[in-house]
């Protein structure tokens, strides 16, 4: 179907550039349908593509300029205090960083909560609301691929958000010539802690977002779930502490995501607890915290699988 003038033998791109008459001869060729004989990379590739697309999407990459603003802003807000601390530590030649690696995410939990609330609905509610999900499932990928790709993408995005400031702190600490062994150990403990936090928060955010197809509701619901649970737990802990029933303080920590992570790292990752009076869980109680954390992550995954099993065509 390609119509070419005999005078323009094989109008190659190079020829078109060199030939001064090329302009007159340029015309739109109606190239007929061309089939595709190349490779079809299948299910695992599609899952990876969905993962990378979702991860990029969590920072607004590949999306409109407007959707880049919030995640990028939160990323900067997350890293800025770390930068300032490092600057101060280097300038004053302080003997230690003002905040522990493990404590940083606890201090910045509001920012993390906002990020989850904004990006979890962005990741899954849109597909449900605009009924794009059937288009995925009419392709090689299956429910399990979709859920894993989305879960892994949001958890990775959260890890980037929470680990980046730790990296800033670590690099800064080394520049300030603080003790290498100490800092490396603290940094590693911090990374384990934020990895757990990322998995837990991503799971909670996605489960809530997956049952609220309206994005606005999703955002509100995630914020509510994180702040109300934390508010309730820390209030109860405060009351328990004030009434001298310090034994109840650690157990109460099981009931909100951020105090759960706090408990795990207090027990096993050498962190100082943010619980009232510093009454973090003991190692024995810590096992319960770890189990509950892992259980919550597995539970979120299970709920997501169940949610999407029902979404057919």
């Amino acid at each position: 179907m390609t119509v070419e003038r005999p005078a323009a033998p094989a109008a190659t791109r190079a020829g078109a550039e060199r030939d001064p008459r090329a302009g007159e001869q340029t015309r739109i060729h109606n190239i007929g349908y061309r089939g595709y004989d190349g490779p079809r990379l299948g299910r695992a590739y599609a899952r990876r593509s969905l993962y990378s697309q979702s991860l990029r999407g969590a920072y607004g990459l590949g999306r409109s300029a407007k959707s880049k603003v919030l995640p990028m802003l939160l990323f900067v807000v997350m890293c800025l205090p770390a930068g300032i601390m490092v600057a101060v530590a280097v300038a004053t030649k302080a003997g230690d960083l003002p905040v522990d690696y493990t404590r940083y995410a606890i201090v910045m939990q509001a920012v993390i909560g906002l990020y989850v609330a904004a990006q979890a609905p962005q990741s899954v509610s849109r597909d449900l609301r605009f009924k794009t999900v059937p288009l995925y499932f009419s392709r090689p990928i299956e429910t399990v691929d979709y859920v894993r790709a989305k879960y892994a993408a949001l958890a990775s995005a959260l890890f980037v958000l929470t680990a980046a400031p730790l990296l800033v702190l670590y690099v800064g600490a080394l520049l300030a010539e603080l003790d290498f062994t100490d800092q490396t150990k603290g940094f590693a403990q911090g990374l384990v802690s934020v990895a757990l936090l990322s998995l837990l928060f991503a799971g909670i955010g996605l489960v809530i977002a997956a049952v609220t197809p309206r994005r606005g509701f999703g955002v509100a619901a995630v914020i509510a779930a994180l702040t109300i649970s934390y508010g309730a737990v820390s209030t109860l802990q405060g009351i328990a502490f004030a009434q001298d029933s310090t034994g109840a303080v650690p157990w109460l920590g099981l009931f909100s995501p951020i105090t759960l992570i706090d408990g795990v790292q207090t027990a096993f990752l050498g962190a100082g607890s943010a619980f009232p009076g510093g009454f973090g869980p003991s190692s024995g109680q810590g096992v319960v915290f770890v189990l509950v954390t892992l259980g919550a992550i597995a539970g979120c995954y299970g709920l997501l699988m169940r949610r999407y099993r029902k979404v057919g065509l």
Partner: protein
Amino acid sequence: MVRDTSVDDVTVIATESLSKRFPKVTALDRLSVDVGPGVTGLVGANGAGKSTLIKILLGLSPATEGRADVLGLDVASEGGAIRELVGYMPEHDCLPPDVSATEFVVHMARMSGLPPTAARERTADTLRHVGLYEERYRPIGGYSTGMKQRVKLAQALVHDPRLVFLDEPTNGLDPVGRDEMLGLIRRIHTDFGISVLVTSHLLGELERTCDHVVVIDGGKLLRSSSTRDFTQTTTTLAVEVTDTDEHPDGTRALRDALHARGMDTHTGGGLPGAGHILLLTSQGEETYDLVRDTVADLGLGLIRMEQRRHQIAEVFKDSDEQASTQDARKETAGHDG
């Protein structure tokens, strides 16, 4: 450029006693049908089981009993392989409004397993073939219904499938958009070499577009045959002539002359002006010649000689009447697709 589709005897879809029962409803009831290459229409009222059938054929919903093959692959065990080679255009809206058609279709191409570069090239090609040009860089939210339908079609074709399922592709389109979509569907087979299974509850559309029509109702097969069978086995010619001084009743004169030459005729029924129209069953080219010669011999003026195609609707109506006794039963049971 167009792929070889000469393998006409290959079966694209084959079902064998396929049934799907839900707790309260039987969506498909022992459906056995073979579909070859080309454009096949799947006709049925809402709730006849069309969508259920497509779900099973995509390997997304297990059949209660019976089996089905798509492109020679078993739907129960090779669903993934089928979905790699098949495209699906859903009936409902499925497009996010905040991305451009290009971004969306590229993403969907990658979900079908195309490498990044190929995904971009195929997207550009496919969007052009469905008739989207500069607007493909704008967010889909601003598109008209017709343009959205084209994007939906493009995402079903972008991975160059061997078969596409189009679920009610003309829904919500105005007459012009409908015609364009039907033309496009025709081209999917003739130009792109991709077989098509298109569902509709409008028979007239399928008559113009499809090579083959499968009619299902209440999950049962009513009829499966080529469009030619539906519309051309009993091609009827309608002939109208003028009266002349020599033959004051030209119609009658022609009828007698045709009878004399061994051709049966009948009048055009009870319609207005039917008395002036002769209907005769065409036996091919000779019939036309015979009529022409006879009219010329009599010195009459030939006003018209046209093919009266039987509409699929009539065939469907016949089937309906046959099935009407069963229908009465089914109405009470109620069904859902």
